[in-house]
Each structure stands twice: as C-alpha cells, then as structure tokens.
C-alpha cells in the first residue's frame, strides 16, 4: 500500500512538472505547483505510515507554506496583470518596473 501511494505520488508530481513545462498561463502554473506540493505531501503521509507520525507534522508545515506562497504569488500575479494587462508568460518579457 505504501509502495502504491508512492507511485501515485510520483505520477502526480510528474503531471505537475509537465503542466509547468507546457503551459503559459501563470495561474495554471501556480496550480501545477500546488499539485506538485500535494504529490510530495502524499509521499510524506505514506512514509509517516511506514515510520512514525513526524511525516504528518511535515505535511501541516508544507500546507502552511503553500498557503503563504499562494497568497504572495497571487498578489504578485495581480500586480503583473495590472502592469502588463495579461498573465501570459510569453508576453511578459521585460524586467523593467
């Protein structure tokens, strides 16, 4: 059961990576990052069943950091949209403010 959970975790992580590599919409990219975090969380929970409950503590930490990351990232996205008028990453090319 733990080996199966780890395989599911690997597949979900790879789906997230492929999503990041194939999409240009910044919001979708953020969601793919969340999917990857979730895949890692599944690994943590599986290893928590294998060893001890510490893995679940780490999952709580990861979720908190993911919430903080989503808040800051989406605020940056709103700021970028206000400046460029789009969230398409191929049309956001300049670093000038």
């Amino acid at each position, binding site marked *: *059961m*733990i*080996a*199966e*959970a*780890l*395989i*599911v975790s*690997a*597949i*979900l*992580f*790879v*789906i997230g*990576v*492929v*999503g990041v*590599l*194939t*999409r*240009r*919409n910044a*919001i*979708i990219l*953020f*969601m*793919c990052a*969340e*999917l990857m975090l*979730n895949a890692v*969380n*599944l690994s943590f*929970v*599986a290893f*928590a*069943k*294998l*060893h001890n*409950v*510490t893995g*679940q*503590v780490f*999952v*709580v*930490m990861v*979720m*908190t*950091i*993911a*919430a*903080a990351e*989503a*808040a*800051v990232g*989406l*605020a940056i*996205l*709103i*700021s970028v*949209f206000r400046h460029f008028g789009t969230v398409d990453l191929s049309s956001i090319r300049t670093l000038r403010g």
Partner: protein
Amino acid sequence: MNGFFEFHFYLFSLLAIASALLFVTRKNPVPAALWLVNVMIALAGLYVMLDAPFVGIIQVLVYAGAIMVVFVFVVMLLNLGRSGISDFRSLGSRLGAGAVGLALLANLLVVQRQNIPRIALAPETDNVVDAVAASLFTDYIVAFELTSLVLLVAVIGAVLLAKKRVRL
C-alpha cells in the same frame, strides 16, 4: 488489509490521477481549478486510507477550501475565465516536456523501488491526532512558531503587493 480498503485505495488513486490529467489539459482556468479541487479531495481520501485522518480533514479545509477559493477568486478578479485562446506551448516543447516527464517518472520509480518494504512497520496508534499534536508542539515547536511568522510576513507582503501603488 482487506478488500474493501484496497478497492477504495485504488479508486481514490485512479480518481486523483485522472483528475490531475484532466486538470492539466483544460484550456480554461476555472474548470482546471475545479479538477484540481477534485484531485485534492481524492488525495484527502488517500490520506484517510493511510491512517492520517487529521491531515485528510486539513487537506479538504485548507487546500480544497481556502487555497483553491483564492485561485478562483483571482481568476474572477482578473476576468480570465472566458479566454478562448489556447495557452499551450508549441508541439516541440510539449514533446520535450513529455520526454522530461517520462524521464523524471522513471527516475522517481527507480528511486522508490529501493528498500521500501511493502508492509507497514509502524505500530498502530490509537489516536493519530494526539500523536501529531504531541510531536508538533514539543519537538517541532520552533518550526511551528516560525510558520506563524511566515504567515504574518505573507499577509503583509500580499497586501503590499496587491495595493494600487507601492511606495517603498
């Protein structure tokens, strides 16, 4: 492990993978977000199967409830829900991404094959929430307090970044 648990474990696994595939192939961000919510709820089911009911509930509350609502809210705020144009990259880079994905998957599966026994070794604890709380509030109390600081900084940063004019 009896058949009932095994059936539901595979059911939630398939649900998670199928929803993730549907999520990553949607053009429109709103259906994509809803399929991602589906992935997270299926993962919550998997957490319950893996003796982590507390994490499963937090997953539904925080991920599916709070974080995805923020995503959908931003899609609504920026009025991105009706974009009909595809945001997929060119065929060449998609094939490249597929190759990278397959290589990474093979890599991960080979790593996971090493020394992972197929049976659970940890003793069955009566109350997982007690064990998580004891570990979180004793061994990892510093990390827990630092997490609250991170959240505070994130709140201030989000407000500052999303304001009309940022004057530093």
